[in-house]
């Protein structure tokens, strides 16, 4: 229990320092763009391929269940709402979060053990401003974008399977998939990922910057980041879904 409070305290302090640096220095757009490429663009494969197959599996499984009620035509509604509201955001965050979170923790951890973070401090610069802000903000923006893309790919996967296996018309599937979605579904699904992105990146930066020892410490921080980020995503998913539902989304 004490450890949970200690970690939460560290995250709050890092967030406060990040906020202070964000408002007291001009933004380094170059670093943001580089991080957006590394954390966002390079995560496209891991975000989209599983999404396509998840959409296909979801369409297949739901067709089995719905066929017993003679309601296979509702596969498109079920696939689109499930993917946009829940599966797309959570699955993308878990997969991309694992890749990005462990990458950030390993990078900053290696910088810590090789004294590169101390070198930054010794040159009168702040590692939070130079390293944490570009990573956290870029990923907080990139994850929702990746979620939108992966959700679209998931729906297309469901469409492909429905067309091939269930002989549903593609146009029918798409029009029903779109009709089934409300603005609230999209806001709830995508809105959550801003929080997930922030949580993953800040946890990874915190773990990376607190690495002690050598390669062993880096490995430990990397594993811990992947585990903590996954737990954080799943726990916060519940509360965020509840929060968005309170606001009507």
């Amino acid at each position: 229990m004490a450890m949970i409070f200690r970690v939460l305290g560290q995250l709050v302090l890092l967030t406060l320092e990040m906020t202070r640096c964000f408002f007291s220095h001009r933004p380094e757009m170059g670093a943001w763009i580089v991080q957006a490429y590394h954390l966002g663009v390079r995560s496209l494969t891991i975000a989209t391929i599983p999404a396509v197959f998840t959409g296909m599996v979801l369409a297949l499984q739901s067709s089995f269940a719905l066929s017993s009620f003679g309601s296979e035509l509702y596969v498109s509604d079920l696939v689109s709402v499930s993917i946009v509201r829940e599966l797309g955001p959570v699955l993308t965050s878990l997969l991309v979060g694992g890749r990005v979170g462990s990458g950030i923790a390993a990078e900053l951890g290696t910088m810590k053990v090789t004294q590169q973070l101390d070198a930054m401090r010794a040159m009168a610069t702040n590692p939070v401003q130079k390293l944490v802000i570009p990573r956290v903000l870029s990923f907080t923006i990139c994850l929702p974008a990746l979620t939108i893309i992966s959700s679209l790919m998931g729906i297309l996967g469901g469409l492909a399977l429905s067309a091939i296996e269930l002989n549903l018309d593609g146009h029918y599937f798409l029009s029903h998939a779109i009709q089934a979605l409300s603005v609230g579904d999209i806001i709830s699904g995508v809105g959550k990922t801003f929080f997930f992105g922030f949580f993953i990146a800040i946890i990874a930066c915190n773990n990376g910057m607190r690495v002690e020892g050598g390669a062993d410490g880096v490995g430990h921080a990397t594993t811990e980041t992947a585990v903590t980020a996954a737990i954080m995503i799943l726990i916060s998913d519940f509360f965020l879904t509840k929060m968005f539902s309170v606001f009507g989304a």
Partner: protein
Amino acid sequence: MSFWELRGVTKSFGSKQVLHGIDLEVKRGETLVILGGSGTGKSVLLRMLIGLIQADGGQILFEGKDITALHERDYYPLRKRASYLFQGGALFDSMNVYQNLAYPLREHTRLTHDEILPIVRKSLARVELEKIEHLYPSDLSGGMMKRVALARAIINEPEIVLYDEPTTGLDPLTTQTINRLIRKLQDELNITSVVVTHDMSTTKHVADRLAFLEAGRLVFTGTLDQARNANHPMLGAYLQEAVFE
């Protein structure tokens, strides 16, 4: 007037006390060598001078001002005047040599790339390197890495340079080169230097004054000549090594 004055400085990590009541003065323009075996607290002491680690007890004064426990940001004016050469070089491995050297200039000046490039080349020339601006740290040998780190440390012509084990892990010839460079920079730029080492050849080449640490206690401070007459067994053993070299 002295730059630093340390009064009864102590430091512990967990239950292990690393430094016991250190009293030390670093005078303007001198090269002070902090000598001692591994794990005696030399690097900890050096890091305390610019606030990378804070002391648990005692007082650290810089130009008469108490800097023992400042907020991180309040160390920045001191860190802009003092450069630190890290034991492993601590070059940023995501940046090439040019970007590494340009880093302090980009952060603290408004110089453009065209203005920075000749300064980078001049700094590399000072450490006897050229045409390596495009290389990454992973492309450099240990000796080259140390020299590039030294070039980065002196690029903004600091008043003070702190060297943490500048020759550890280097072959004797590269060690000689680094020693010669430290002395040359000393003479050319009139830098105040604090050198942490357990290497007697470095001590012999660069020291104006010597501070000897043993088990976290400062047991001797003085010139090399005074050290030879100090009658301290451990210090004597180190000096003996210097004779053989």
